[in-house]
């Protein structure tokens, strides 16, 4: 690997993706993770350090047709306080509210939280159950190329994503929830502030006459990536959320996850908590 030789702060998206062409670039946005990781020597900065802060195309939260677009540089605080997000995506607000501390929420960006690809990333679980897509930009030829990818297929391992070295995450797109949409998020940790979750759970769907359809369930910190739970979703789909169904689904959730033992909890504990909290969340959804 080459040594850091160049610092670059582009002011347009074209300049940024042009710079990414050679693939030997470390991208800096909020810096809340890159700064301590690089200072401690856990992350080595590549040939170029590119600070994307001054690219206007990466900012802002807007309604575009039937989608909410959140720019990659939107901070956790901006998202949490934005009227569009508060009105349509309260589950994302809830997750942001449990994110680190005020100082870190003021600096950390959603693009950074996505690209870090931590299995415990706080915004990733609500984004997964909201069916979000990641928006990517690159410059394969001389022209800007943009495409989107479902977030559910974006993560491949801890800190690893399907984004190539030549691509930049420009934002995230979230479809406007339909009538009857319900969504809940829960983060389990040992203290409210600055904690990395032991587990986290997101549930979303459409509730009509007590029946849940379009069910989406995501779990954090129980697998190498934040992950959708296909079997749990299948067990929930089209069901009336009575006590027996909730118990059955919670048991399926416990069997579906394959967590590991680590400093924060044992695998056994995580499975039990997935069971208990899935049950709790589904009871809340049933009462929505």
């Amino acid at each position: 690997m080459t040594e850091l030789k160049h610092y670059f702060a582009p002011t347009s998206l074209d300049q940024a993706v042009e710079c990414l062409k050679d693939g030997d670039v470390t991208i800096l946005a909020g810096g809340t993770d890159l700064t301590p990781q690089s200072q401690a020597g856990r992350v080595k900065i590549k040939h170029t350090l590119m600070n994307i802060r001054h690219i206007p195309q990466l900012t802002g939260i807007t309604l575009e047709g039937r989608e909410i677009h959140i720019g990659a540089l939107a901070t956790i605080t901006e998202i949490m306080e934005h009227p569009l997000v508060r009105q349509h995506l309260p589950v994302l607000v809830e997750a942001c509210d449990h994110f680190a501390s005020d100082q870190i929420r003021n600096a950390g960006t959603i693009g950074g939280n996505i690209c870090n690809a931590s299995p415990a990333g706080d915004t990733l679980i609500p984004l997964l159950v909201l069916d979000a897509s990641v928006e990517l930009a690159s410059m394969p030829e001389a022209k800007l190329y943009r495409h989107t990818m479902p977030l559910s297929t974006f993560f491949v391992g801890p800190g690893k994503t399907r984004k190539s070295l030549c691509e930049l995450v420009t934002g995230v797109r979230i479809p406007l929830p339909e009538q009857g949409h319900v969504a809940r998020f829960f983060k389990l940790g040992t203290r409210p502030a600055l904690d990395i979750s032991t587990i986290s759970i997101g549930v979303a769907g459409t509730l009509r006459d007590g029946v849940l359809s379009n069910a989406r369930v995501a779990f954090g910190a129980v697998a190498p990536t934040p992950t959708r739970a296909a079997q749990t979703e299948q067990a929930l789909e089209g069901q009336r959320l009575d006590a027996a169904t909730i118990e059955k689904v919670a048991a399926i959730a416990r069997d579906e996850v394959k967590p590991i033992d680590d400093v924060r909890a044992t695998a056994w504990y995580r499975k039990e908590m997935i069971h208990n909290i899935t049950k709790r969340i589904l009871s809340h959804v049933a009462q929505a």
Partner: protein
Amino acid sequence: MSLKHDIEFTLNGVKRRVSVDVTMNALAMLREVIGLTGTKYGCGEGECGACTIQVDGVSLNSCLMFAVDCDGRNVTTIEGLANDSKADALRESFVEHGAVQCGFCTPGMIMQADHMLHKHAHPDEACVKRGLEGNLCRCTGYKKIVDAVVACGAAEVTP
């Protein structure tokens, strides 16, 4: 040799030009390059809040920020609050409530409390605790710190 970059930014109301190591964090720049040692190094990982500064009107951990990222921005440190009447009231309230023990967390606490009081002029106890959750006091003098901030907000007259 480490890569250097020249940056220009506003520090406590004054334009500054400095040449910094690209890999240096903002805390190291403030303390070691510029010589403003009011901002403290506690943990270097964003856990303790001792290094809290304000950039473009929001509080953040200077240990989690690249120094080069200060370029073109408006940075305020604890030294910059010395001539600020709002922050004066906050400082007086800390003194009055005995909210300072060893004093190491105090600059960070003041910077964060000042930011919070700009967002919530009259915070209650729960709001203050929430706002200061990224700041640790290892003397564990939280009660008096929270009381000082609540009292300062309560005394503040809305213009």
